[in-house]
């Protein structure tokens, strides 16, 4: 549970652990600026150092999801495909889109909803799992030198594999139904990276808190389904009356939903204010989550 520099191969005299009165002094005395820079770099340094571990645990997680099933990954494709088909039948007749523009085809509303759900489900998977994530790996964290902070990264990567399938399906459907894809989809990787950064940060925060109490788990199970309706998945933030059209951005998911929809469905660039706000949320959550996890790191191993 304690940060340590990279293992040296073979026998070495490298100082691997130096703690005085509960504080690690391995890097000597750094100035406040250097400490800050080191903090900003820390998650990336750790991820690079443990890249082999991330790879092997991620593979195990992905295998585990469909262990014992014959069809395996086909299920990962079937679920979003069925969802898309259902929406098409359910909403196929809507001639007017939730943002009051008229539909170009009978499938527009289903694509509109599907785009929102990809983003929301990505969030929901992490929100449900994060509070019990550390308990899942308690045997590793307590008994080995396991880098617990990498679990948030690994679980987000796993969830993004499924979100990626959904997104690919959405692109294929968009292409099939409308005959073309907007050039704006080239910005999707940027959206994915900032959303993943947000979710990793959220998972750090929720998992550290969840190590102390099960209540976090129950809380997320209670509010996540409600959040689906407080997020513009089935409606558009554009039709809300003031002041709700601004307040809705207090729900941090709004920006992520709106941007993915702009890029894929409407084929336009998201507004500057929304992009700035969402990027800020993403970076702030990432480092706040890491900071919070680090603060409680020493206690986590003791309470699990």
């Amino acid at each position, binding site marked *: 549970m304690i940060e340590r520099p990279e293992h040296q191969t073979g026998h070495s005299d490298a100082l691997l652990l130096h*703690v005085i009165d509960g504080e690690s002094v391995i890097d000597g005395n750094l100035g406040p600026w250097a400490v800050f820079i080191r903090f900003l770099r820390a998650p990336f340094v750790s991820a690079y150092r443990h890249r*082999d571990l991330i790879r092997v645990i991620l593979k195990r997680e992905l295998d585990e999801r469909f262990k014992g099933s014959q069809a395996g990954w086909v299920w990962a494709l079937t679920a979003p495909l069925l969802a898309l088909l259902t929406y098409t039948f359910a909403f196929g007749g809507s001639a007017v889109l939730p943002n009051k523009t008229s539909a170009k085809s009978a499938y527009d509303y289903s694509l509109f909803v599907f785009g929102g759900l990809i983003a929301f489900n990505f969030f929901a998977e992490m929100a449900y799992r994060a509070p019990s994530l550390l308990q899942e790996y308690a045997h590793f964290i307590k008994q080995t030198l396991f880098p617990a902070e990498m679990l948030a990264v690994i679980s987000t990567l796993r969830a993004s594999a499924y979100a990626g399938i959904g997104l690919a399906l959405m692109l294929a459907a968009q292409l099939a139904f409308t005959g073309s894809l907007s050039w704006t989809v080239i910005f999707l990787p940027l959206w994915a990276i900032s959303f993943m950064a947000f979710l990793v940060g959220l998972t750090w925060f929720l998992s550290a*808190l969840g190590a*102390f109490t099960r*209540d976090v788990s129950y809380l997320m199970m209670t509010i996540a389904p409600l959040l689906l309706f407080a997020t513009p998945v089935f409606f558009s933030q554009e039709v809300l009356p003031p002041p709700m059209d601004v307040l809705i951005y207090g729900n941090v998911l709004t920006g992520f939903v709106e941007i993915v929809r702009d890029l894929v469905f409407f084929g336009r660039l998201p507004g500057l204010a929304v992009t700035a706000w969402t990027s800020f949320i993403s970076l702030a959550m990432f480092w706040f989550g890491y900071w919070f996890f680090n603060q409680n790191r020493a206690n986590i191993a003791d309470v699990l």
Partner: protein
Amino acid sequence: MSSDAPVVIHARHLAKAYPLYKDQGAWVKQALFGRFKTYSRPFWALRDIDLEVRRGDSVGILGRNGCGKSTLLQIVCGMTRPTKGEIWVRGRVAPVLALGATFDQDSTGRQNVLIAGAVMGLKRAEVIAKFDSIAEFAGIGAFMDQQLKHYSTGMRTRLAFAICAHVEADVLIVDEALSVGDAAFQRKCLDWIDSFKKQGTLLFVSHSVDQVRRLCNHTIWIDNGRIREQGEPHRVIRSYVQATRDERDDVRRFSAADV
């Protein structure tokens, strides 16, 4: 103890308190507002430990349940932080703690070797290169490709020790682990530890004073978080055995005390 070799583990006035909470609510408050107030009472697992281990030493650690042996080893490994005092460790540490407990039940032996190797800081290529050698040391044959839940306790121990034997550690930490294997495997492990001792440093915890006598050139006896006696194995073991015979099992030993 050899006095010219470099010091590998250095501990001064080492103390560790585990927080004891009244209820779950106190845990949450601690996590949220821990910077401003403390919501727990401390349980001092270690009170005051001074230790200096040089390269090539083999240190046996004796003590009754709850005396702080495992806490000391966990601090040396870096799994948990000491509350007070100073510690530093040089070189790669391989903890053979609670062997087999860290394995993943649903993965095969092969996958677990990959995971355990990565956890211990080996590169993937290194683990794959050593794979045959690990399988041979473990000697569990075709079970290597079976899920861990089909393993017996002995098989699990064999696999775990085989992995630790291939980490190329500077400091090996063995915690009451060898009692699970059968006699032949125990002998194999002890022989391996003997050869490891030629270049590496060993911390060995066991309730078997015979194993400590066989493997260690220095022994410390921990009692109630403090070193009660240390030095030459024969002498320390004699007083330890004497004391366990004379002293009653103290029912109040695990109660928390104020600072």
